[in-house]
């Protein structure tokens, strides 16, 4: 087939017409997956911050008003918490920036481990904060409930209160934990898979 032979000749002459891909571009190609996971961690954390606080703004009903009146220092604490969460978001951003420019799998492994560590600290922090506010909420709630049912006995036994609060925490903590595991666990799992692959490659080095 003479057309095919003509094509073959031409095919071999077009070698130099491709845009050359540089080594740096190749590096970033093989690391793209991890950087996209880290990018998602950043995006999800921002969405979470906006959505959860957005809900908080809409829910400022009587209970929350009374709650802040009862515990004015908690209000300040909440503001501090905002700053801390923003700090985490900044750390996620820095992770993302650093992972997009890494040029070796060793440094990528470090970046992945670092990201995982920060996400885990972030989850623990959120559980701690949730429990902290939960304790105050539970105490207020139970005080109100007890005094309604038993108007004579406004004062509750400390033991009863302690047990009630402990039970509420046993409910609150798993809920928060499951929430964060669902939101970030999936992303972290993808990142871990990548990490295992990278480790294999580095071990055989």
């Amino acid at each position, binding site marked *: *087939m003479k*057309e*095919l032979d*003509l*094509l*073959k000749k*031409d*095919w*071999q*002459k*077009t*070698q130099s*017409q*491709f845009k*050359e*891909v*540089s*080594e740096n571009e*190749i*590096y970033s*190609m*093989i690391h*793209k*997956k991890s950087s996209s996971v880290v990018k998602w961690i950043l995006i999800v954390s921002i969405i979470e911050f906006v959505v959860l606080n957005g809900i908080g703004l809409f829910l400022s009903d009587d209970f929350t008003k009374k709650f802040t009146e009862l515990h004015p220092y908690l209000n300040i604490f909440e503001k501090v918490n905002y700053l801390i969460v923003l700090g985490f978001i900044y750390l996620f951003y820095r992770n993302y920036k650093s992972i997009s420019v890494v040029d*070796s*799998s060793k440094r990528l492994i470090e970046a992945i481990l670092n990201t995982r560590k920060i996400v885990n600290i972030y989850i623990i922090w959120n559980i701690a904060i949730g429990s902290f506010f939960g304790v105050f909420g539970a105490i207020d709630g139970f005080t109100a409930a007890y005094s309604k049912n038993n108007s004579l006995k406004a004062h509750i036994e400390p033991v009863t209160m302690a047990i009630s609060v402990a039970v509420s925490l046993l409910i609150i903590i798993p809920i928060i934990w499951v929430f964060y595991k669902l939101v970030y666990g999936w992303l972290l799992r993808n990142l871990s898979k990548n990490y295992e*692959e990278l480790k*294999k*490659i*580095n071990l*055989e*080095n």
Partner: protein
Amino acid sequence: MEQQFVSLLKENQNLIHKVCRLYTCTEDTHKDLFQEITIQLWKAYPKFRGEAKFSTWAYRVALNTAITLYRKDVKQVKTTEYEKCSFFISQEEYNPEEEEQLKLMYKAIHQLNDIEKALVFMYLEDKDYTEIAETLGISEVNARVKMNRIKGKLKKILNP
């Protein structure tokens, strides 16, 4: 190991470019496929023991990626879209008849299915049937038979 891979890939990148050229139509899809092949090569690299030449191994991975993985993600090019394909022929001086023939051939090849493209690719790369068979994982006889069928198909496309 990573450095070794990156420099090997850089040296052999023309091979990937050529696979992309055969399987994609636009600059964007070319880049996408190039990246996908690079990722697949990198993933498979620990298994590459240097028994074969890097290029022989890369042919196999690149074509496999183009045939299987890529097809899942990207809608296959519709016949009408061939018109939009930018075919470039080398900057050689051809007579008008030859140039027309070349353009028609490039267009015809884009209409082949993915497996047929792989065979044509190896043929254009001037590989013998032993290597074609080995790379594509078929028997030598099968490769010959397939190639003859493809030639027939191309003739039909050129002279309907």
